[in-house]
């Protein structure tokens, strides 16, 4: 299948304050691949993810997702294909109850009441949060918020899933169950994280971003065991690869 391909070609992006966040990003991800994006703080990982569903538009270069090229006119279509889970779940959960929040996307797509209920049940069940459905988000723990934020995106059944630091707020067990969950997704996945063990577990391929450019691209096992490369990028070997 060709429609879940992501391709970035010479993508440049400059923030209004003049910061050049992306300085020519190039990569191509094919259907069903699971790709980790790693790099130091401020390397451009989050900015890159914001291009995936048109929250930001490139100043130069092209972003192609499936058969669509990212532009102001195609943004809405792209948002149905690409689900983005942002870093802070409080920004993502804006509705008064968990149920309504997960239902927000499906309702906007134009599903009817019955379909929406089914989707919400399926999505909340998948992340193991069915019993939270009538709670307001501000009464949830950080781990529960993350899980619900993922359900809210999954309920739209996107073809491609992009996540920014999905495990940042989670305790070890929630993190472990998130990893298990991510492994079950058959989607094309892009995960930006400093949690290199998570990337090693979930992603077979890994991109290293430095200063707005992709400086390494290859199998996770090779890249994440390359200590000099990691150190150049303010990273270190994943704990599971440490030899004691």
């Amino acid at each position, binding site marked *: 299948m060709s429609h879940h391909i992501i391709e970035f070609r010479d993508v440049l992006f400059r923030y209004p304050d003049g910061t050049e966040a992306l300085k020519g990003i190039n990569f191509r991800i094919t259907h069903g691949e699971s790709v980790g994006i790693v790099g130091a703080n401020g390397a451009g990982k989050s900015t890159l993810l*914001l291009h995936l*569903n048109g*929250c930001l538009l490139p100043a130069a270069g092209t972003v192609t997702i499936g058969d669509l090229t990212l532009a102001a006119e195609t943004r*809405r279509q792209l*948002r*149905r294909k690409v*689900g*983005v889970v*942002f870093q*802070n779940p*409080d*920004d*993502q959960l*804006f*509705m*008064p*109850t968990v149920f*309504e929040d997960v*239902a*927000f*996307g499906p*309702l*906007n*797509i134009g599903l009817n*009441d019955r379909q*929406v*209920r089914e989707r919400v049940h399926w999505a909340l069940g998948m992340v193991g949060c069915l019993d939270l459905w*009538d709670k*307001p*988000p*501000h*009464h949830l723990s950080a781990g529960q918020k993350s899980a619900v934020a993922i359900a*809210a*995106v999954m309920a*739209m059944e996107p073809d491609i899933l992009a996540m920014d630091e999905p495990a940042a707020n989670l305790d070890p067990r929630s993190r472990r169950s998130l990893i298990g969950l991510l492994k079950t997704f058959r989607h094309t996945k892009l995960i930006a994280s400093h949690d290199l063990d998570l990337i090693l577990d979930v992603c077979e391929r890994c991109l290293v971003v430095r200063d707005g450019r992709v400086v390494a691209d290859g199998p996770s096992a090779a890249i994440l065991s390359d200590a000099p490369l990691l150190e150049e990028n303010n990273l270190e070997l994943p704990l599971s690869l440490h030899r004691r």
Partner: protein
Amino acid sequence: MTFDERYFNIGRLDRLSYGDSFIHRLDPRTKVIATILFLFTVVSFPKYEVVALAPFFLFPILLMTLGGISLRFIALKVLMVSPFAILIGIFNPLFDTQTVTIGFGTSISAGWISFAAILVKFTLTVSTALLLVATTSFPGVCQALRRLGCPAIFVTQLLFLYRYLFVLAEEAMRIVRARDLRCFGRQGRGVKIFARLVGTLLVRSLDRAERIYRAMLSRGFAGDIPRLGGFRLRSADLAFAAAMALFLVTFRFFPLTEEFGRFAQELWR
């Protein structure tokens, strides 16, 4: 009370709405309409009317008893906002010095009576509004308003106000805590520092607003927050509405309390 404790108290009101009682189960629309009618009726009384307002306390008391909400909780909340009402009415006794007799040979200035009327109206309206939220939940009230034809933009604003009140309070709490940990005694607590804290809070909120909007767009937001169906009017709602209408009309247009008072006076004499 410290800021932290105050913050944890905000959530009390909407925890109450998780309850399950006759009042909680009523259709939110019924409760919203009943409350609005009640407020208008109470406010419509002339400014020197105090006695005729007394029976209206039955409504909040009924909501409280049937809804299982503690009097103390509501009373404290009403007390907390009472300074506003007191400020509005406090000058009445000074400006309105005409004297009136109130029975048993005592007479006071009419201003005191209108001041009392303001306080009574205030207590009635605020406690009823609080009880509406406590038995319906704020989102429930918003949803009912939307269904009753309130404009989408207004309801969306209210929903966000509610959702992010907690996030904002938490943010403020973290900032205040960070300041308190690094200031010793009086140092660092001045107005200048405070002004900067508020500025920081504003900038952070603006940033957050942008991130939230992005998240909304990512999930297909196009101006109106869509809603699932799900309200159903049941016979209990109709019964409640009918009883409410009867109650309001009776006590608004027939001076029953006065009659009762006169009757009591006759007996006493």
